[in-house]
């Protein structure tokens, strides 16, 4: 009988430990381990690690589930939050009013460098994607969302439709930005909880096309159109983020010049990868 002498790779050793190795390689790996004590020791170490992890945390699954994590409780709470939501809507207007008022006296400030703009967008993204129950002030369905943010920011804003990328608009919020002016932040979410934000604020930095920046596990594509800077932030996947940004950009441009749509740009990708 032929022995499979193909050298065993480290990947195969992991697969062996995790029960992922195809049956026809098991014998080869076992034979390999018999004659390679270093690898056998490695495997033993990995198994010990796994046992330590299971010994440390395995019992959690047998604990009684706290009441707050029962579905009965979670479903029941659905109604209680409505009052808070109403109060929050009022709060949103208060915050918006203050930020708008602050921006009033500062509109003649010096032009912002775009680096600062990107940093503000990244900060806002990092701060708010973490908010699970209240990532936004005004939700997408509210008719006043866009008029309100447009008025505060001082530009006609539009929240692009990113459904073709599997992203749903949750809503938006108003933020103070450099020099006290106002910025808008729109938040989008995928079905599995990934979040993207679109940050928009007045920015006198000339026209600019899409530019990609990546920093500390977060990526931003920014562009400037009619004195408004936009920054789309999300996971650092250049192709995907640029596709989404391109679609957002096209939709905004389309609004400015209706009836003149051209979507032959190869960057537009409709795939959800």
């Amino acid at each position, binding site marked *: 009988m032929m022995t499979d002498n193909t050298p065993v790779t*480290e*990947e195969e050793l*992991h*697969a062996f430990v*995790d029960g*992922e190795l195809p049956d026809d390689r098991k014998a080869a790996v076992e034979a390999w381990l018999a004659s390679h004590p270093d690898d056998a020791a*490695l495997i033993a*170490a*990995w198994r010990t*690690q*796994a046992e*330590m*992890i*299971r*010994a*440390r*945390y*395995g019992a*959690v*699954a047998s*604990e009684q*589930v*706290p009441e*707050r*994590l*029962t*579905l009965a409780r*979670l*479903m029941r*709470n*659905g*109604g209680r*939050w409505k009052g*808070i*939501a109403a*109060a*929050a809507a009022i*709060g*949103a207007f*208060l915050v918006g009013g203050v930020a708008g008022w602050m921006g009033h006296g500062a509109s003649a400030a010096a032009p912002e460098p775009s680096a600062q703009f990107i940093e503000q967008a990244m*900060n806002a993204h*990092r*701060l708010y*994607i*973490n908010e*699970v*129950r*209240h990532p*936004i*002030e*005004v*939700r997408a369905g509210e008719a006043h969302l866009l008029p309100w943010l447009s008025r505060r920011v001082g530009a006609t804003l539009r929240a692009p439709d990113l459904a073709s990328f599997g992203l749903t608009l*949750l809503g938006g919020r108003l933020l103070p930005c450099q020099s006290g002016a106002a910025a808008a932040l729109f938040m989008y979410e995928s*079905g*599995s*909880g*990934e*979040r993207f934000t679109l940050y928009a604020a007045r920015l006198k930095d000339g026209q600019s096309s899409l530019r990609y920046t990546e920093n*500390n*596990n977060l990526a931003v594509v920014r562009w400037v159109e009619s004195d408004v800077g936009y920054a789309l932030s999300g996971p650092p996947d250049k192709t995907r983020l640029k596709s989404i940004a391109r679609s957002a950009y096209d939709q905004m441009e389309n609004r400015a010049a209706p009836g003149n749509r051209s979507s032959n740009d190869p960057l537009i990708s409709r795939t959800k990868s």
Partner: protein
Amino acid sequence: MPGVFFPEWLCCRLHRSVPVSSFRTDIETAVPALRRYARALTRNAETADDLVQETLVRALRSEHLFHGGEIRSWLFTILTNLNRNRLRSLARRPSVVSLTDQDAPDASGPELGGRDIERALALLVEDQRHALLLVVLEGLSYREVAEVQGVPIGTVMSRLARARSQIKAYLDGERPALRRIK
């Protein structure tokens, strides 16, 4: 005060008229495993249950987005993404690491094993920690982990390999110098 300003819209969008289905039963069945995974990820019971609660709220809200498939993997995906968001936000803050427990008297006691693996896990990059825990603690297949993390299987395997080699190095004694400070 800030709590008053922020809408809790997402939670009020729980559907009132969703039929009781195996969907919910499946979710409920997964809760113990989600708690275990979250506990190992956060190493803090309270934070872990917060994550699980947020995962469940989101899952219930997104029932209409669930197009069949493994509910368990989907829940792990949501929890993993929430944890990643949480860590990104934490990364912006100055890191606050308590050194007091380094000098705790039980450093050589029976707890040693548990504490060591806990510290070793804490040293990993989040994606590696996710991958390792999903495989060894939750028993997900490489393919399932690849789906949860949204990466190719090869990436999962290299994360796993890096995680294991770092933990091994730590347990073998290449510990941060802190250990020697007394």
